[in-house]
């Protein structure tokens, strides 16, 4: 699923590892999320959106 995680992450000056640690996943998961190669669970999508200060609707492209 395409998304704007990379852009929002850059806005908050977060590295992939920092974001991964904040949402409780491995860095690889964030990498594949950003590349659109992995569809997160609702819980993870919510955590990422919350950490990046946005909503799931704005973060992911449905």
């Amino acid at each position, binding site marked *: 699923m395409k998304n704007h995680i990379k852009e929002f992450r850059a806005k908050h000056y977060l590295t992939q590892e920092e974001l991964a*640690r904040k949402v409780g*996943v*491995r860095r690889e*998961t964030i990498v594949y999320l950003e590349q659109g190669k*992995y569809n997160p669970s609702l819980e993870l999508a919510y955590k990422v959106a919350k950490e990046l200060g946005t909503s799931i609707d704005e973060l992911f492209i449905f």
Partner: protein
Amino acid sequence: MDPKNEKKRFYLMLIIFSILVLGVVVMVTSLFIYNSPKPFDAYSILSILIATTVIGFATFFVIKRKKEIELGIPQYDERSKKIMYLSAARAYYISLYWLLAIMWLNEIFAKNNIPTDAVIGLAIAGMAIIWVICQVWYNKFGDKHI
């Protein structure tokens, strides 16, 4: 106890257990080398190579996991769990065909006087390799089910 510390403690215990198992494997391999006919025949060399490779990989992963535990990096998350389950299921399915192939080739093995334990070892090694390939494949390329 704090759940995070409990998890950390659990994974550290797992690491200690892995080190103990590794120790046993190293001991058995050493005994095997000591008791093997010298000079080594092809079967002994192959067995030693396989054991050394397994020990090498296992040591690498134990050290890597220990470092990750100390850094507080989660050992498994939702994606890695899904990949583990999917690759295990796919590897099992493919392994059935591998074992059937071993069965069909049994006559050839018997004609060439290949011992039964070598055939069983080949079957097990094949299953392990299939699992590793599935794990790497799904990790790299994903799947629509992930």
